[in-house]
């Protein structure tokens, strides 16, 4: 048992953690990830937990939070106690902040998101505003509480997660690499806030990090795990680093003051001569402009400028670092260079030597031509895996291009060896750790020696040893006269780059003033759903097309009323156009029904028109009303009006909140397949089927992974035991709801009168 008595402790009444003989083997692993961990953390201590990739740091953190088995299953033994009870005994006693910004967001607005834990623990609604406001103030989020969560930067999202935990007044705060995915400015803002709140509240704090430097001054104590999941060093940070610094660095831990490791050399002869001479411009980007649109479920789109007026020359035999804050558009720029996103302005041209049949814009090339010349390492390696063994994964592009199998195999094996993946050749790539998958993506991208490599945050999450290997491969490829482009926040990578380009966030068009709201927007989700459902009887009972026409006319009048937006302010745009777009499937359906009725042998225009119009009657109210259903409100109303069980309803609302991200996943997988030479081509129906299956499966996998992470975040805020929940927002049935309901009965009445 490790209880160093020379470790200073800063006050704090509660928050003593006691771990005894904790061992955990997740199913699917032969060896335990945690092995006989004994650890006592006195109340108020600030502990920094470090270890090489795969040492089980995050796993131990989840065990401390009592959420180890929320999203995983395996064999567990030993105990974890917080102040003598189980960590889950009081909801919110343990606050948890996860690595990926936004991964734990449950609501559309920041105020509602902070209130989530309070709702779970049954805090009366009247007490919520004060507690939400003070939690937001503690993390210096000063914007209005109805600010959309998606509008926050990565650093702000991490501070929001912290506010959500603080609102429950935890005794123990756990932070899982809270700044790993942030740029330096955002990372510093998170560290400052963590330092401030843990000091002022005397919180016991455990921070997991793989880069110690910025956290050393913060911590009272440093605990080091080795790659087998055992505690190997423990004590005050200064002493541990003085005694063990060199040994820790050799294990791969980023120890402050120790110089960056030298890149690991790639075996000579792995790469042959390049296609261009050194310093020749391989890729020339001229005045690029890229707009990104997010299409939301209600049919509205948000458009932002991701890249604007960007010029860049990428030269063979040189490495280029693209730097700049998160959200500056670096990732989008990289996609635009490879012709993987539509651009709204400018040009991308490759060197004539690399051109395909005279075409110099990669956007116009076939998937194989793209793969031959360009390679892309995505930030999200996991969703772009295509094969079921590591070896097949890295051989994918070489095989698609028809390279000599034996030579390609030799190259792949050499590169896998450099990156420490050689022993995993036959493993399923989807079962590797995140860091391993990123390295695998690197090998997959470079094995066929592309003339241009575009790597998005290639070194994130790597320890010293794997970092040296990744940088070694980047430099070997550069030395073979490929052009290498890396987006990065990593000073070590920037220092070694031949050229550095700073990308700054383009000016955004001013957001228009909030337009007037249509009358229908005042109705709640249940009335809107009921109004849509009432269209079914209206359609079904219409006996003849003349009746249907009268019903449809009634509906159109009501639509005009519903979409009217009286009052002051700018006129809302696109109301009727939106309805028209949402009616397209309905119109197609009406024509199709009419056509099949005709084919059935009726050949009676009366019957055909009746069948077709009936479809329109059923569909039109949905096309008008459903757009105004809000996900958070739907949850509130289903639970408070219909008294449906709280937890499924909240889960539904959380899922609806994320639906618009599914399309991004789909697009990302499609890009990865195109750049690796295996995208569907119109000539091969088989390849189209393969692609549809791969994209669907990939979208499902990513959404399920998001669900698993969200489950951890939600349970850390007391959702597991939230059977008697309170609700931050009331869900009254209002006048607008009654009006929608009554008016939706009008078409039914018209239909019935004709019967």
């Amino acid at each position, binding site marked *: 048992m490790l209880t160093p008595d020379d470790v200073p402790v800063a006050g704090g009444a509660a928050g003593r953690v006691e771990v005894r003989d904790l061992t955990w083997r997740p*199913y*699917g692993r032969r060896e335990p990830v945690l092995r006989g961990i004994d650890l006592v953390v006195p109340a108020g201590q600030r502990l920094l937990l470090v270890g090489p990739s795969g040492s089980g740091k995050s796993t131990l953190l989840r065990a401390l939070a*009592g*959420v*180890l*088995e*929320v*999203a*995983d*299953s*395996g*064999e*567990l033994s030993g*105990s974890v106690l917080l102040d003598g009870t*189980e*960590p*889950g005994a009081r909801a919110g006693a343990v606050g948890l902040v996860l690595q990926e910004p936004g991964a734990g967001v449950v609501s559309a607005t920041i105020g509602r998101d902070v209130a989530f834990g309070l709702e779970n623990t049954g805090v009366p609604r009247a007490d919520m505003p004060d507690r939400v406001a003070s939690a937001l103030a503690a993390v210096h989020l000063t914007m209005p509480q109805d600010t959309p969560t998606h509008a926050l930067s990565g650093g702000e999202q991490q501070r929001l997660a912290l506010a959500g935990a603080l609102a429950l007044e935890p005794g123990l705060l756990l932070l899982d690499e809270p700044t790993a995915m942030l740029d330096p400015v955002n990372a510093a803002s998170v560290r400052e806030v963590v330092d401030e709140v843990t000091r002022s509240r005397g919180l016991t704090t455990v921070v997991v990090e793989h880069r110690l430097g910025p956290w050393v001054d913060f911590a009272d104590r440093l605990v080091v795990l080795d790659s087998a999941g055992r505690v190997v060093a423990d004590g005050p940070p200064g002493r541990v680093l003085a005694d063990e610094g060199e040994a820790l660095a050799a294990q791969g831990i980023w120890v402050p003051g120790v110089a960056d490791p030298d890149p690991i050399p790639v075996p000579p002869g792995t790469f042959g001569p390049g296609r261009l001479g050194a310093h020749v411009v391989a890729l020339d980007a001229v005045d690029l402009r890229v707009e990104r649109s997010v299409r939301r*479920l209600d049919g509205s789109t948000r458009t932002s400028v991701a890249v604007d007026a960007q010029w860049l020359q990428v030269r063979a035999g040189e490495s280029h670092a693209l730097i700049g804050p998160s959200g500056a558009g670096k990732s989008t720029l990289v996609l635009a260079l490879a012709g993987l996103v539509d651009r709204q302005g400018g040009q991308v041209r490759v060197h004539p030597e690399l051109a395909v049949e005279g075409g110099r814009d990669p956007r116009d090339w076939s998937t194989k031509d793209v793969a031959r010349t360009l390679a892309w390492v995505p930030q999200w390696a996991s969703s772009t895996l295509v094969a*079921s063994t590591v070896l097949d994964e890295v051989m994918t592009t070489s095989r698609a291009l028809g390279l000599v199998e034996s030579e390609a195999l030799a190259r792949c094996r050499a590169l896998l060896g450099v990156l420490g993946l050689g022993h*995993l050749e036959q493993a*399923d790539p989807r*079962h590797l750790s995140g860091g391993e998958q990123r390295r695998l993506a690197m090998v997959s991208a470079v094995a066929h020696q592309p003339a241009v490599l575009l790597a998005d945050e290639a070194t994130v999450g790597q320890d010293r040893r794997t970092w040296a290997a990744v940088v070694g491969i980047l430099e070997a490829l550069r030395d073979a006269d490929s052009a290498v482009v890396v987006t990065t926040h990593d000073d070590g990578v920037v220092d070694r780059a031949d050229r550095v380009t700073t990308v700054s966030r383009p000016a955004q068009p001013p957001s228009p003033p909030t337009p007037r709201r249509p009358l229908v927007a005042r109705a709640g989700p249940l009335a809107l*759903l009921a109004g849509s459902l009432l*269209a*079914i009887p209206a359609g079904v009972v219409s006996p003849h097309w003349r009746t249907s026409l009268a019903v449809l006319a009634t509906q159109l009048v009501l639509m005009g009323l519903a979409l009217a937006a009286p009052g002051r302010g700018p006129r809302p745009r696109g109301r009727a156009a939106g309805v028209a*777009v949402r009616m*397209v*499937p*309905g119109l*197609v*359906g*009406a024509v*199709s029904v009419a056509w*099949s009725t005709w*084919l059935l042998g009726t050949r009676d225009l009366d019957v055909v028109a009746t*069948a077709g119009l009936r*479809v329109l009657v*059923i*569909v039109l109210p*949905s*096309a008008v009303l*459903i757009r105004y259903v809000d996900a958070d409100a739907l949850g509130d109303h289903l639970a408070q009006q219909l008294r449906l069980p709280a*937890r*499924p309803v909240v*889960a539904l609302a*959380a*899922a609806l909140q*994320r*639906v618009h991200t599914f*399309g991004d996943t789909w697009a990302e997988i499609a890009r990865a397949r195109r750049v690796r030479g295996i995208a569907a081509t119109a000539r091969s129906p088989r390849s189209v089927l393969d692609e549809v299956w791969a994209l*669907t*499966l990939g979208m499902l*996998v990513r959404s*399920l*992974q998001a*669900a*698993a992470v969200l489950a951890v975040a939600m*349970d850390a805020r007391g959702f*597991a*035991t939230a059977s008697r929940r309170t609700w931050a927002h009331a869900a009254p049935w209002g006048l607008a709801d009654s009006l929608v309901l009554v008016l939706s009965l009008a078409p039914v009445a018209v239909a019935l009168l004709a019967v």
Partner: protein
Amino acid sequence: MSTTNTPAGSPGTSTTSTATTSTPDASTGSTGTGTTTPARRGSIRASGSLFGWRTVDLLTVAFLGAAFGIAYWGWGLAYGGPADLLGKAFPPLQGITAAPWLMAGVVGGLVIRRPGAALLCEVIAALVSMLPGTQWGASTLVSGILQGAGAEIAFLLLGYGAFGLGAAALAGALSAPLEAVYEWQVYWTDWGMDYKLLYGAILTVSGAVIAGGLGWLLTRALAKAGALGAFPVGQEVRETRAV
């Protein structure tokens, strides 16, 4: 029954007992206390109480449903061509192109293995698919409830204890009858009873093959991809391929 030893109770309560809390037998169905014999080879029940929905169960069913909803909407745009071709040949054959819409309930049930999972998954899929606008409007939601209820009945009949290919096929098949009867009233009002019955039969068989068979394959593929680590099906796959 090996199922009584299944690890992973309700979250927040099981990680901290002072003795060994889990045993490996549930995952393999063959080792363990010696007195256990697996009731049905290859199917592990949901952990803890059958009605004890964990957070990850709820979120997974919601996210699965939402993802299926998007796919359903896409199929709604694409199915017209094939459906017209089949309809031209013999109208009740359109039951074949309707079968993919039965898949969410099957997959939800196979993954979560708790009462209500199949129904909830199919209903959420229907709800999400109607949000961007479909040719059936709110009628989609009614269909979702009826299809999901059918799949739910299949898993109920099996006592929430069997989740193999046969169970998947049964769930796919039973998703069809209630939906077919509803469609008679709303979409196929002009058909005679012979067409209506044939349509129901074709939808049932296609449901078993397309929704059941493909749904079973998809569930296995998701488990192999490591996306179902918290679920019985994930254990079944992972323990046989440990790394």
